[in-house]
């Protein structure tokens, strides 16, 4: 009895009271004790955790539940004693009653049923102690709550339709300004009630309920509803992790205080407050003080599988500034004829390299410190690369609405719809394609051919001191336009070059991420961790780290020299379809099939931002070069722009008619290019989109975003391809836009 799991003192007292009467000469005392203990601390703990407002009624319900349980098991004497001791009236035990007394009956019936194993498995999963994911509801014992909510029947299944209809009528009758907000309740309520019915094996009622009310839901939930329509039995739910998570996590709604009061008053004044119970159990209502939001504002932010984001979820400070670039002296023999009067002088600032507005002298307050996360030091070859980069950037074309980039399209012919991933190196010298036949092919974009390094014997023969040793180690006999890399056993869904062009990463449906050497064109390492298809992978901007996201709903951070991940970013409700590093390598953004985007801190692994608003799985993410903004594209054809610092949506670009698979900002951040399955590349004016934004604390607190409907003005150009969906975009260092896709007649 001492080992009550997380129960309150009341729970202990209740347990004491119950076991003493039970020990009056009953055979199965101990069985009783254990069952009582497991049920009562669980229920009272869950009750104590879930709703802060209702203390006494929850205990009451717990007692009733236990009472029902005793009666079910024909322990009438102990039931009688309990009833007397607890002072419960006789008539409350009507199973058809309006409170959760019925829950005990239903609960015990199910416990005795074949699901004891499920119960055990749920309860014995270790409940996380202190730390919880900062996003989802703070239930200390999600497992026990699951049990309770799983087995508690909030009233008669046949009356669910009545309850829902009643709520519907009420909401239709409120004032206009509140109606939009309160309508948010419909969808999560509908889904939870439906799942409740299915889980409790009321198949016919569930079907009837679905048919009647599914048509009322918002259009952007159509895909979810279709999946639900196929789910009519409890067994169907078992394999669907997304739905199970949906059931156990709380759907977040943001409602203004006035609307909330209205709703609460209405639901509590009626006798059957079933809906109130369900709302309390399954919904998390984030209340803000202020004006109610309009329908368009709500529509812009909703759509995610878990509702919107709580205010606290987006409160953490995010260091979105860029890291200071190390100072590199320009070489003396710089043949660049530009006005580089700093040549050869040490300790001079570099010429304009990055006009991101970060002050080069003092520390940007929004930038992380250089040592916040360990980063690899610069090797000599890296320094040479940087010098090349700086030279190229001086020749960069400034883009703008009147100076659009030229677009060079690389079409993959004869791919037979097997092209699944493309990447281009930063200096645009190599292009790699991942295919559905599990091969990875690397091509050279420049006339220079791809060569492998010589074998060990030959390497011993060359002169190591010569200046062009890097050329001599290459074996010219192996020169070819493209090289094919074999190794994966499933379609390759993600590809990423390392910044130093030595390595290539590929992630595949076989669950592994492979590191290939581009010197020997062989596979070096296979990183196994996801046991399910890995949809995307990317090297960090400084190399060494890489992130991968897959079907197991987590994204993992790896380092090339560790065979196990360093960080696991768990929190999404559905697969992670896209994962990208922030330019300062301190944050990772992941887009998911649950239609939300999360920003994770690499240092701690915490989710620091949740961005909702897309109405379909997110497939493309792009950070602006200055690190302040994020652009995302999804299957709904919209590109959304987010201010990372505040965690707010700042723009919406409508225009594409099909899934957007690629997004890229130009090198200085003036133009955003988007490529989509509708065979077009569109260019948008990013400087104008991010101009004079009014994001302040008020908008952050209430979510009152004011999106201008200026997609047409921001659209600078639409370029159509010949039936070739665009799956990759890349701006060269001089701001030429490269695009890639497979011809699909």
């Amino acid at each position, binding site marked *: 009895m001492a080992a009550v799991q997380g129960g309150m003192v009341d729970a202990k007292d209740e347990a004491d009271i119950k076991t003493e009467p039970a020990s009056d000469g009953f055979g199965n005392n101990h069985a009783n004790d254990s069952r009582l203990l497991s049920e009562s601390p669980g229920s009272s703990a869950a009750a104590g955790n879930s709703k802060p407002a209702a203390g006494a009624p929850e205990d009451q319900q717990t007692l009733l539940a236990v009472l029902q349980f005793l009666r079910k098991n024909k322990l009438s004497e102990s039931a009688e004693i309990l009833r007397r001791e607890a002072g419960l009236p006789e008539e409350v035990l009507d199973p058809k009653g309006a409170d959760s007394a019925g829950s005990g009956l239903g609960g015990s019936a199910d416990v005795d049923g074949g699901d004891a194993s499920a119960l055990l498995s749920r309860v014995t999963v270790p409940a996380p102690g202190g730390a919880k994911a900062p996003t989802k509801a703070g239930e200390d014992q999600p497992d026990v709550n699951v049990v309770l909510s799983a087995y508690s029947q909030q009233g008669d299944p046949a009356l669910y339709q009545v309850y829902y209809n009643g709520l519907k009528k009420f909401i239709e009758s409120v004032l206009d300004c509140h109606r939009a907000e309160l309508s948010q309740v419909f969808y999560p309520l509908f889904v939870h009630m439906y799942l409740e019915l299915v889980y409790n094996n009321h198949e016919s009622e569930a079907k009837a309920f679905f048919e009647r009310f599914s048509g009322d839901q918002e259009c952007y939930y159509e895909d979810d509803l279709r999946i639900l329509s196929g789910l009519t039995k409890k067994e169907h739910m078992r394999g669907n992790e997304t739905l199970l998570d949906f059931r156990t996590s709380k759907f977040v709604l943001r409602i203004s205080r006035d609307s909330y009061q209205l709703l609460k008053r209405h639901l509590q004044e009626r006798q059957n407050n079933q809906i109130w119970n369900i709302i309390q159990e399954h919904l998390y209502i984030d209340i803000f003080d202020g004006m109610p939001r309009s329908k368009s504002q709500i529509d812009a932010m909703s759509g995610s599988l878990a509702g919107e984001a709580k205010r606290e979820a987006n409160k953490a400070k995010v260091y979105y500034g860029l890291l200071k670039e190390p100072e590199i002296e320009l070489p003396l023999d710089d043949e660049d004829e530009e006005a580089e009067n700093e040549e050869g002088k040490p300790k001079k600032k570099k010429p304009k390299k990055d006009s991101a507005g970060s002050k080069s002298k003092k520390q940007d307050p929004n930038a992380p410190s250089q040592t916040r996360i360990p980063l690899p030091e610069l090797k000599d070859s890296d320094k040479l690369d940087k010098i090349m980069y700086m030279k190229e950037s001086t020749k960069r074309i400034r883009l703008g609405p009147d100076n659009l980039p030229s677009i060079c399209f690389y079409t993959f012919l004869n791919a037979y719809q097997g092209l699944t991933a493309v990447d281009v190196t930063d200096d645009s010298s190599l292009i790699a394609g991942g295919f559905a036949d599990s091969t990875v092919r690397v091509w050279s974009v420049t006339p220079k051919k791809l060569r492998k390094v010589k074998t*060990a*014997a030959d390497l011993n023969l060359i002169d190591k001191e010569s200046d062009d040793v890097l050329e001599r180690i290459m074996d010219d006999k192996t020169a070819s336009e493209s090289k094919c890399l074999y190794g994966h056993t499933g379609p390759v869904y993600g590809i990423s070059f390392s910044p130093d062009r030595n390595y290539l990463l590929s992630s595949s449906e076989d669950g592994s991420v492979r590191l290939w050497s581009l010197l020997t064109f062989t596979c*070096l390492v296979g990183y196994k961790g996801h046991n399910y298809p890995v949809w995307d992978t990317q090297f960090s901007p400084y190399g*060494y780290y890489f992130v991968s996201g897959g079907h197991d709903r*987590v994204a993992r951070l790896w380092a090339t020299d560790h065979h196990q991940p360093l960080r696991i970013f768990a929190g999404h*409700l559905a697969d992670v379809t896209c994962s990208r590093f922030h330019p300062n390598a301190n944050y990772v953004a992941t887009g998911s099939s649950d239609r939300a985007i999360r920003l994770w801190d690499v240092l701690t*692994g915490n989710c620091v931002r949740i961005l909702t608003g897309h109405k379909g799985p997110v497939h493309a993410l792009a950070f602006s070069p200055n690190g302040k903004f994020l652009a995302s594209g999804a299957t709904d054809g919209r590109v959304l722009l987010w201010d990372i610092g505040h965690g707010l949506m700042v723009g919406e670009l409508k225009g594409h008619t099909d899934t957007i698979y690629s997004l890229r900002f130009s090198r200085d951040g003036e133009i955003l290019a988007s490529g989509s399955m509708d065979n077009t590349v569109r260019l948008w004016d990013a400087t104008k989109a991010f101009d004079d934004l009014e994001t302040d604390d008020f908008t952050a607190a209430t979510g009152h975003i004011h999106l201008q409907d200026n997609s047409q003005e921001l659209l600078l150009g639409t370029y159509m391809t010949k039936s070739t969906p665009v799956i990759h975009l890349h701006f060269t260092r001089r701001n030429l836009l490269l695009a890639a896709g497979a011809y699909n007649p």
Partner: protein
Amino acid sequence: MRLQVPPGGATLQVMIQILKDMGVTEYEPRVINQMLEFTYRYVTTIIEDAKIYATHAKKSSVDADDIKLAIQCRMDQSFTSPPPRDFLLEVARQKNQTPLPLIKPYTGPRLPPDRYCLTAPNYRLKSIQKKVSSSAGRITVPRLSVSAVSSRPATPTLGTPSVQSVSSKVGTPVSLTGQRFTVQIPPPSQTASTKTTTASTPAVSNVLINPSLIGSKNILITTNMVSQNAGGDSLKRKHEEDDDYDAL
């Protein structure tokens, strides 16, 4: 989702209807055939399993419980789903507590320890000491054959080959692709004291075989005290039967 199943079965129509109900509107015509094949295979597997369970329970006919059990067992086996969210959160919490490891400078290519890499040679060549003296007119150079690596511990075999090493260099055999084969000859007498991991103190001897023997390829012979998995007996050298993986 209402499905009017025609009495004869008409599975094609059923499949088309299912695809429509699940919202799949664009698909190639062969998709239906593939779906039907899958359905057929899945259903027959389940029913066969259910029959086995029914006979095990000594029932005369298969009933719904058997089918349910068959489905459950198959699902755990073939259609596994990712771990549940609370488990993932717990694992993530633990993993995210450890600080990020510091990066050592000047370490060359940063790769995991060799046993986690795929850089080891994935084959071994064994030499076949055929009866050299048996047939007259045969070249007395030992024939070399290629065999795959197996991790079975085996005793080191035969005696010394007649070709001796020309020079011994110490260096790691880098298994680069190309026209080079790495042939390993068991070194003369080995003691079981060395417990080496890959690429530590290999004794490499390079022998060039008469090219005319083997065509135009050069063969590089190395001997190696390497064991593929570090553990136990060092000499997991070859090898097995002479007759598998025969000649070049």
